[in-house]
C-alpha cells in the first residue's frame, strides 16, 4: 500500500505541474495529465495502478451517462439527426477500410475506426460552450453530433463485447448489453425519484445511492462479460433525473476528477518510445481526425442546407480524438485484443489532437476565411441567400438575428407599422420567422450577397443583437448611411464600436443593471412594488412560453 501511495503522490504532483502549465496556455486538462504520465512513466509501477485505472474509467463514463440528456437531441430535426448519424457511420466505414488496407486485420481496423470516428465530449463540448449557451446553430449541431457519438461509443463497446471478446456467446452478450441500458432508462423513469426522496436531501446518501447503482450496474456488466463502460454509462443514465442529477454531478464530479486524473496519467505512463509502426498509425489517426472527418461532415452539412460557415465551424469542432477511444483502446490492449502500437498511437494522437483543437477553435474564423478562399466550400444546391419577398426596400430597418431580442423588436416595429427585414442563418429560426409572416432572408451576415439582398444601402437603421464581435465588426464595416446599432458583451469593446461609427451599442449588462437598480429603489420607496413587479413579469414569462408553444 505504501508503494501505491508513493505512486499516487508522483501522479498528482506531476499532474499539478503540467496542469499549471496547460492552464497558463489555456489548454485543456487531459493532454496535461497524459503528458504528466509520459514524463513520469518510469517512476511509477503501472500494474499496481490498474485497479484504480478501472475506477477512473468507471467514474468517467458514469459522468458521461449522467450528463447525457436525450432531450437535447430534440433540438435538431429528425432528418438532421439521421443524416449526421449516417455520416458518422460513413467515417467509420472509411477508416475501417483504411485500417484494413494498411494491414491491421479486421479487429484492429475496427478499433482504428472507432478512434478515428469519435470526437471528444470533454474537450469538444467545453470548447463550444459559449455557442451552445447562446443557442447558435453550429453550437447546437456540434452538441447533437457529440451526443450521437456517445451512443455510438457505448454501442461499439457492446459490439466488441459480443463479437470480439466473447464470440461464442454473442447473442446473450448483445442482449445483455442492450438490456442493461434499458434497465438504466427504466430506473431513471420509475425508481430514482422515489429513492432520492427517501434521501431527504442528504448529500452523503445521494452519493452512496449513485455509488450503489454504479457498482451494481458494473457488477451486472461483468457478469455478462461486458466492459464496465456499459454498466457505468447505464448507471449514469439511471441516476440522472433532474433535479437530483445536479447534486450528484457535483458530488461525483470531484470523485471523478480524482480517479480520472489517475486514469489519464496512467495512460501516459503506459506510453514508451514510439516505434515506427506507432508513429505511422498516429499519423493515420491524425489524418482522419483533422482532415477526413471534418471534411466529410462539412460536405454533408452543406448538402443538408446549412450555410458554409455553419457547416465548417461545426465540423471543425469535431477535430479531436475522444476519451472514449482512449477507454476502449486501453481495455482492448490490456485484454490482448489489440497491439501495443495501436494503443500507443491512440494515446499520442489523442494528446496531440486535443491540444490542436483548442488552437483551431481560437482561430476558427481565420481558418474558415482561408479555406473559403479556395472556393471549395460552395455548394451550388445551397444558393444562399434565400428570401421570401420581392420588393425593393427603402428606409427600412434591418434586423440581424431572429432570437428573443429579434422577435421582440419585430413585434414592436410591426405595432408601429415600421417596415423591416430579418436576416438569419439558423434554418429553424428562418422557418419560424417566415411562418410569422415577416420579410426574411436566410443568409449569413458575413456574406455581402446577404446584405445586398437586404438593401443595406437604402436602409434607415441596421440593428444586430448577437453579441459576437466578428458580427458587430462586419456590420460596422458596411458602407452605408444607415444608422448602426450593434451589441457587445463587454463595455470595453463598446467604446471601440462607437468610434467605428456605431450609433449605439447594446451592452446587456448596462441595460440589465439600470433596470435592476430601478427595481431596488422601487422596492424601498413604493408600497406594493414587489407584488406588482412579480405579477407583471410573471405574465410576460407566461406570454412568451405560450407564444413559443403556439
Amino acid at each position, binding site marked *: *500500500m505504501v508503494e*501505491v*501511495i*508513493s505512486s*499516487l*503522490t508522483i501522479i498528482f*504532483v506531476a*499532474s*499539478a505541474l503540467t496542469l*499549471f502549465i496547460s492552464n*497558463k496556455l489555456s489548454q485543456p*486538462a487531459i493532454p496535461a495529465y497524459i503528458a504528466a504520465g509520459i514524463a513520469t512513466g518510469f517512476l511509477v509501477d503501472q500494474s499496481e495502478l490498474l*485497479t484504480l485505472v478501472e475506477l477512473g474509467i468507471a467514474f468517467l463514463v458514469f459522468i458521461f451517462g449522467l450528463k447525457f440528456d436525450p432531450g437535447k437531441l430534440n433540438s435538431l430535426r429528425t432528418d438532421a439527426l439521421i443524416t449526421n448519424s449516417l455520416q458518422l457511420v460513413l467515417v467509420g466505414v472509411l477508416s475501417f477500410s483504411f485500417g484494413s488496407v494498411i494491414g491491421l486485420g479486421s479487429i484492429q481496423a475496427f478499433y482504428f475506426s472507432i478512434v478515428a470516428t469519435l470526437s471528444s465530449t470533454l474537450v469538444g463540448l467545453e470548447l463550444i460552450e459559449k455557442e451552445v449557451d447562446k443557442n447558435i446553430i453550429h453550437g447546437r449541431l456540434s452538441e447533437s453530433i457529440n451526443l450521437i457519438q456517445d451512443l455510438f461509443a457505448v454501442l461499439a463497446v457492446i459490439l466488441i463485447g459480443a463479437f470480439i471478446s466473447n464470440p461464442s456467446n454473442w447473442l446473450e452478450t448483445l442482449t445483455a448489453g442492450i438490456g442493461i441500458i434499458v434497465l438504466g432508462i427504466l430506473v431513471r423513469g420509475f425508481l430514482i425519484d422515489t429513492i432520492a426522496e427517501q434521501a431527504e436531501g442528504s448529500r*452523503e*446518501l445521494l452519493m*452512496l445511492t449513485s*455509488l450503489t447503482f454504479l*457498482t*451494481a450496474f*458494473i*457488477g451486472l456488466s*461483468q457478469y455478462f462479460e461486458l466492459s464496465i463502460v456499459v454498466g457505468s454509462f447505464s448507471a449514469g443514465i439511471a441516476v440522472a433525473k433532474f433535479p437530483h442529477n*445536479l447534486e450528484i454531478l*457535483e*458530488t461525483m*464530479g*470531484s*470523485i471523478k*476528477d*480524482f480517479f480520472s486524473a489517475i486514469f489519464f496519467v496512467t495512460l501516459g505512463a503506459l506510453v514508451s518510445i514510439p516505434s515506427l509502426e506507432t508513429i505511422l498509425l498516429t499519423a493515420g489517426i491524425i489524418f482522419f481526425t483533422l482532415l477526413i472527418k471534418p471534411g466529410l461532415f462539412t460536405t454533408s452539412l452543406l448538402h443538408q442546407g446549412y450555410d458554409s460557415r455553419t457547416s465548417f465551424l461545426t465540423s471543425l469542432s469535431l477535430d479531436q480524438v475522444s476519451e472514449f477511444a482512449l477507454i476502449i483502446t486501453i481495455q482492448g490492449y*490490456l*485484454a490482448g485484443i489489440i497491439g501495443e502500437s495501436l494503443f500507443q498511437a491512440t494515446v499520442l494522437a489523442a494528446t496531440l489532437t486535443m491540444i490542436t483543437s483548442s488552437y483551431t477553435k481560437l482561430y476558427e474564423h481565420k481558418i474558415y476565411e482561408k479555406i473559403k478562399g479556395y472556393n471549395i466550400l460552395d455548394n451550388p444546391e445551397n444558393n444562399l441567400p434565400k428570401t421570401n419577398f420581392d420588393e425593393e426596400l427603402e428606409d427600412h*430597418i434591418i434586423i440581424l438575428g431572429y432570437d*428573443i*431580442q429579434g422577435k*421582440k*423588436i419585430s413585434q*414592436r*416595429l410591426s405595432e*408601429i407599422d*415600421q417596415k423591416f427585414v430579418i436576416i438569419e442563418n439558423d434554418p429553424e429560426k428562418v422557418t419560424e420567422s417566415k411562418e410569422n409572416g415577416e420579410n426574411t432572408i436566410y443568409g449569413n451576415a458575413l456574406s455581402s450577397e446577404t446584405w445586398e439582398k437586404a438593401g443595406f444601402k437604402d436602409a434607415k*437603421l441596421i440593428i444586430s*443583437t448577437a453579441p459576437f464581435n466578428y458580427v458587430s465588426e462586419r456590420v460596422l464595416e458596411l458602407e452605408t448611411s444607415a*444608422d448602426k446599432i450593434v451589441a457587445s458583451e463587454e*463595455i*470595453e469593446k*463598446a*467604446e471601440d464600436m462607437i468610434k467605428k461609427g456605431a450609433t449605439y451599442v447594446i*451592452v*446587456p449588462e*448596462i441595460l*440589465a443593471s439600470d433596470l*435592476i437598480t430601478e427595481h*431596488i*429603489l422601487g*422596492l424601498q420607496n413604493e408600497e406594493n412594488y414587489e407584488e406588482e413587479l412579480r405579477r407583471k*413579469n*410573471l405574465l410576460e*414569462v407566461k406570454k412568451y*412560453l405560450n407564444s413559443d408553444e403556439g
Partner: protein
Amino acid sequence: MSLEATLAYDLALLIATATTLGFLARKTGQPTIVAYIATGLVLGPVMLNLVGESELTKLMSELGLGFLLFLLGIEMNIDDIREILRPVTNIAILQTILQTSLAFIIPLALGFTMMETVIIALCTVFGATPVIVKLLTDKDEITTLPGKIDVGVLILQDIYLVIILALLSAGNLTDPIAVSYTLAKIFVLMSLVGGLSYLSARFILPGLFRRVAESKHAFFIHGVAWAFLFISLTIYLDLSVEVGAFLAGLGLGQIPYREELKERIRPITDFFMVIFFSSIALTITRSDLLIYWKEAIIASIILMIGNFLIMFYLIDRENFTPKTSFLGSINMTQVSEFSLVVGGLAVAQGFVESEILGYLSLMALLTMSTSSYLINYNQQIYKRVEPYLERFNSEDKKDVQLKEFENHAVIIGYNNIVKRVLPVIKQEYSDIIIVDRNPDNVEKLSRDPDLEYIYGDFNHGEIRKSAGLKRAEFILSVSSNASTQHRILNETNIKSTRFLEAKRFEDAAEFYERGAEYVMIEDAITAEKVSEYLELYIEDPGIFKEEVENDIETFLWGGKRG
C-alpha cells in the same frame, strides 16, 4: 482486463449494504456512522462472513483518514488555534494522564494481567478523531468553541499516538535511552514537517493557488497533490499520516480559496470514510469479539462516564462556560479505532494475546456507536441538563462570540451587473455579504470595507450558513446555475426579497412558481429595453439621442462611472 471478480463484488456489496443501512439510519434518526460500522459487522466475520478486508479497502481507509485530517487542517485557522493553544495543551496533557490512570484502574479491577492492563491503558486513551470530526462537521459545529477545543485535544492526542506507535515498534518499552532517542526523533521530524508547512504557507502557496484557482481542475489537483506530498513524507519518516495531512491542510488554511478546496475534496473524503467505517469490523472474528463481552460492557460504561467527567473538569478549569465544557466533553467519550491499531501492533510484537484485541474492538464498537448518538444529539441533551449546570457558571467565564447577520443583503456571484448595482444596494442596506467564486475578484472584494466577502461555491451548505441566507432581507443571485437558484428558494421564504437570474424562460416560470419575487432573464430585459429605444428612435429621435447619451458616456469612460 477485468477487475478481480471477488474484488468488484466485495466493494459493491460493501457499498450497497452501507447505503441501505445508511438510509435506514437516516429514517430512524440515527447517525450514519453507526450504520457504516454495522455494515462491517454484518458483512464481516462476525456475522455473515461475506466480505474480507482487501488492499483496496485498506488504501481507501488510509486515504480517507488522511484527507479527513487534511480537511480539518484547512478548516482550522492558525489564529483560531493560537487563541486556545495554551488551554488546549493543558487539557490534553492532563487528560492523557488522568484518563490513562482511569484506563489503568478498570482493567486491573476486571482481572487482566499487568502487561495486558498497560497495553489496554495505552490504547483506550484516544478519542476517535474520525467520528468526532465527521459528526461535528456534518452538524456545522466543528468551528464552534467546543469543537475547536476537541479538535485541539485530538490533534495533540494524535501526536501522542505517534509516540506510542514508535515506542511499540521499537519493541522496547523499558530502555530509557532507546525511548528518549525515539521521542527526540519524533519531535524533530514533526517540527520539520510543521515548519515546512508553515514556510510554504507563507511563501509559495498563496501565489501558486491564485494562479490556478480559476481552473477547477487544476485547483483540485493542486490541493490533492499537496495533501499527498505530506502524506508520503510522513509515511517515509514513519510518522503519523494523520498529523502530516493535518499540517498540510493547516498550511493551506491561510489562502482565501480554502472553502472552495474543502468542498471539492469533501466528496471523495466522504466516500473513503464510508469505506473506512465499514471496514473497521471486517478483520474481527466473532469469537475474539465476544470473549470478554461482560468486561467490555462494564468497562465501556465506566470509561464513558469517566472520560466525560475528566474532560468536563479540565475544560471548566480553564474558565470556559459550562455550555462549552459540557459540549466539549460529551463529544469525547469514546474509544478510538486507533486502539485497534495500537492493539494490533502490541499483539504482533508479542506483548499480549489476540483476545485482548477482541476486547478492545468490542469496546471501540460499543463506545463509538453510543457516542455517535451523544454527539448527534448533544445540543438537545445540553438543553435538558442546562439548569443543573448553572452552579458552574460564574462571572469570569466567557466564550468567544460569533458574528451573525440579520436583515442584510446577500449577493451571490459578482459580475459587471452586480458591480453597477452595488452602489444602490450599499445605499439601501447596512450589511452586505457577497459570495463569489471567481479568483479574479478576490483582491477587490476582500478590500471593500462596506461588505463581507466569502469566497466559495454557494451550493455548499457551509457557505450558505455563513452567509446567513435564512435571515437575509434581500437576495440577489446572478448565478447561472439553476440549482443555486432553487436552493435559495428552498431555504428562504417570502420574508426575503429574491431577485434571481435565469437563462431560460422555463426556469423563470419555475422560479416564479416557487415564489421568487423577480426573475431576471438577460435576453428578455435587453429585448425589452432595446425595443423601447427603437420605438423612441423612430417616433422621437431627439429623445432617443438624449436617452442613449448617458450610456455612450459610460462607454467612452471605459465603463467606469464616477
